[in-house]
């Protein structure tokens, strides 16, 4: 589904070239849980940003279903991220003025938008995906906190809201960048299990420095100094 071909990402650090990713090649298959493992600063997050189109490779290319991301306009890449990709970041970013339920709905189309862009929408009252969002949050144990504001939620609860946001609407790929980094081990494992259990038929790409979080991964690649060190 996503192919990374000889992709490099080079930063300019005061005139010095720094390779965040160096000639990486890998493929993400439909429905696959791909783990990206590596120490801090190894380039694993940069690889994730390349795969989802948030960064453009300095050389090489990244293709989604055969179409290179660099051939897409900025708007097309944004639309791809909005409709097909879900994101869980290291920090549980939520919009402070929206409730848990509203935060989950951010990024999903309204009925009007669905109609306009021809996106199929099985729901017709209010936001197209509102019932699904409620169901998802309830399934994640937040059924009684749908209308709580972010400041009323714990770190783990916030991260679960972020997971619900990433999963809602049946995204093709969920990208998770160190989603357990700020959680204790028990909560971290719970988050990974939630992601795995709720991703449906979608793929999951998870970046972490903790190998125990990738026990359920279909495949794990290890990154070191921006290079692919191993694939298991």
């Amino acid at each position, binding site marked *: 589904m996503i192919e990374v071909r000889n992709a490099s990402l080079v930063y300019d650090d005061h005139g010095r070239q720094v390779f965040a990713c160096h000639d990486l090649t890998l493929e993400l298959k439909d429905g696959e849980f791909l783990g990206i493992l590596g120490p801090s600063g190894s380039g694993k997050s940069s690889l994730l940003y390349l795969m989802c189109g948030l960064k453009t490779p300095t050389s090489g290319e990244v293709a989604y279903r055969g179409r290179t991301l660099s051939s897409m306009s900025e708007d097309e890449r944004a639309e791809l991220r909005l409709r097909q990709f879900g994101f869980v970041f290291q920090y549980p970013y939520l*919009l402070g003025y929206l409730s848990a339920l509203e935060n989950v*709905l951010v990024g999903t189309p309204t009925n009007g938008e669905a109609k306009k862009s021809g996106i199929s929408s099985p729901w017709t009252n209010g936001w197209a995906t509102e019932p699904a969002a409620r169901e998802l949050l309830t399934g994640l144990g937040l059924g009684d906190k749908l209308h709580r504001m972010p400041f009323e939620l714990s770190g783990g609860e916030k991260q679960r809201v972020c997971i619900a*946001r990433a999963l809602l609407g049946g995204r093709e790929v969920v990208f998770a960048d160190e989603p357990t980094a700020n959680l204790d081990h028990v909560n971290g494992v719970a988050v990974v299990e939630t992601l795995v259990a709720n991703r449906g038929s979608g793929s999951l790409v998870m970046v972490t420095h903790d190998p125990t979080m990738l026990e359920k991964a279909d495949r794990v690649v290890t990154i070191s100094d921006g290079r692919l060190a191993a694939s298991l």
Partner: protein
Amino acid sequence: MRNPLAPTVFLLRNTSKTLPLIGVIVLAVMLIGGIVAIMDSIPLSIRTTYGYSKAYLGVSPRGNMAMTPILRHIVKTESPVPLGRVMTCRVSDCEVKSIVGPWRFAVIGLSQDDMSYYLDRLGGCTITGRLPLPGKAEALLSEPVARNLGKKLGDVFLGPTDSNNYSPNEVRVVGIAHMKPWVALAPIEYLEKYHFPPIDLLIVTAKDIRQQDKLDHWAYERLGGEMARTYTYFRLEIETADMFKILYTILNVVIALLVVVITLMMAMLMNIYQSQRLQEFGLLQALGYARKRLMRRVLSETALVVAGGWILGVVSAFLLMTVVKVLLMDPRAFMLDPFDRQAYLYSVPVPIAIFLAATWTIALRFRRFDPVGVVERRLV
């Protein structure tokens, strides 16, 4: 459920940020509207106080008192429009108050018959009291003049001890005419006997009041200059406009400076508020909201704040001016128009300039914005 990213959702749930912005715009619009309305009240006062000249043409001879009959003859024989009446009058003056100080105001001496015609010509009215009797030291004031001077029936209007409103005898108010035009009338016989200059003036009316302006223009050309001085409404308009040209130029500069200061202040405030939302913008952009879409959203919010602030400002300015008019101006018959469109039009550059400045600030911010920096916590 409402779209969580609708502009109104952010604005209504972040009133601590929204209200100060709206407040500044409201105050700016009130300030500008108030200044312009007060400024406009001066020419408005001139037009109102001396608005009686709309209804007739005044002619006074220059240098030679014997010219009056000749002027009368010329008017009667050469007038381009049918005439209503050519009245002989004497004129003295008194002092009325305005927001910029005292102004001289004509006390017109007419025969009783001409007084009735004169009042009818100005639109007609009911009179509390009566018309001044021929030759008596009496006066009739219209209601705005009486209010301006604080006079009521029986009060002394002109007198020997009042150097600004002088007459050798006490001239008392015997009638108050309930009409909008400012009028002060006295018997012609009394002015002839006790007041200088001993010159007969003419008051000339066109038969059809709609032709008065044509008559005025003709008289200004035909009689003006060495022969006579004419008093016409169109000249009052021209002279008032000339008088205020420089003042309005200064006003424009002051308002332009105000707009610049307010816009810079608002742009700074908005910049601060946008900086506080970097995390939100970064997150949304990372999730897939294109820059254009985010810009559109932020600009919609800005447009709502700016338009809302302006509308509230106009309403507040209107209410403020109405209060000022009722409490401060009306009791002294001073002019202030809360419906002064020019006052509100002058405030239109405020929202436009703020919106443009905000657009520029937001565009700059989004141009170099890296959402990865935000989600990795490098920028926040």
